């Protein structure tokens, strides 16, 4: 009777070596994948928080017809709110963007003394607004409603717990402002 051939020691060693190479590569890859995933998740959370804050303010500024500010820390927005889910806030409404404690809030005042408060950002440690004055060609800390025009853009700088990289600046362009740049000659 023919004897059954088993694997030699050399074959087993080669097989184990290959298995260990394969497992090392797979586990190393998995570990790198998990660490990259966790880094990405934290970056994603932060960038999406910035994006959602930015989009909310873009939406507010897109309906702003007049602006007023108090010491660059608080802003009154006179909005043409068009259609809102609550009838009291449809059409013309007044909004106030302000800091309370460490929360950045937006208070919308509608008809029949109705008010709606919205939390824009939590954990805010610093907040400043700058308005670009096209006549001075410089930023101003305040903007007076009496000024006929809106600033073409507004710079908002804030530090918040969800923005880990420190003070973060956002530029907002007001679509209802005069956006044509008039270039005037320099004084000789």
């Amino acid at each position, binding site marked *: *009777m*023919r*004897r*059954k*051939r*088993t*694997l030699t020691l050399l*074959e087993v060693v*080669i*097989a184990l070596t*290959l*298995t260990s190479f*394969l497992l090392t*590569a*797979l586990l190393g*890859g*998995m570990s*790198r*994948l998990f660490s*990259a*995933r966790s*880094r*990405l998740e*934290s*970056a*994603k959370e*932060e*960038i*999406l928080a*910035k*994006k959602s804050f*930015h989009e909310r303010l873009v939406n507010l500024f897109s309906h702003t017809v007049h602006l007023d500010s108090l010491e660059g820390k608080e802003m009154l927005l006179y909005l043409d709110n068009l259609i809102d889910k609550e009838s009291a806030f449809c059409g013309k409404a007044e909004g106030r963007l302000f800091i309370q404690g460490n929360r950045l809030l937006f208070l919308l005042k509608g008809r029949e003394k109705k008010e709606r408060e919205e939390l824009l950002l939590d954990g805010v440690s610093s907040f400043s607004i700058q308005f*670009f004055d*096209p006549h001075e*060609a*410089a*930023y101003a800390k305040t903007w007076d409603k009496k000024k006929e025009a809106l600033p*073409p*853009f507004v*710079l908002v700088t804030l530090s918040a717990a969800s923005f*880990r*990289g*420190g003070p973060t*600046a*956002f*530029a*907002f*362009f007001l679509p209802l402002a005069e*956006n*044509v*740049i*008039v*270039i*005037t*000659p*320099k004084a000789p």
Partner: protein
Amino acid sequence: MKTARTFLLLELLIAFSLISLFAFPLIFSPFYRLHEEMKSLERIECERLCELLLAQVQKLLYQNAVPLKKISSKGKVSTLDELTGKKWGDFDIVFGAPPTKQKIHFDVLLTWIREPVKDFSNKECALLRCTFATKTEKSREEFIYDIPVVFSAAQGAP
């Protein structure tokens, strides 16, 4: 009685090669998806930076600090660095945990989309295209903004 045949080393090697061949895509496809997701996050962050940069460019234009006369005729592109003699478009961004610092540079390119022409009110109007081009670790992106410009009479068209 016929004995059961054992595996040959060659067969084992083929088996390992096949496992490796099919296991690596399993690892690399999530890496590819992570890479794509990171690219889209970078694009979102770049959009915010471009709006800041656009505000800087508009401020320079309002200050009449960009010699628009030096921008060549339609189709030719000039960089803001060349025009002003200063370096523009550098940003440091920090995000994620642990915080990762990344440098992003945008080339600011200016070109006329519509060269200055007199309109019905006898003002000279033009359309300036501002392109912010960046090359991040993951991709190359371009952000385009068109800026309407009006020249008052004394300045004259470039």
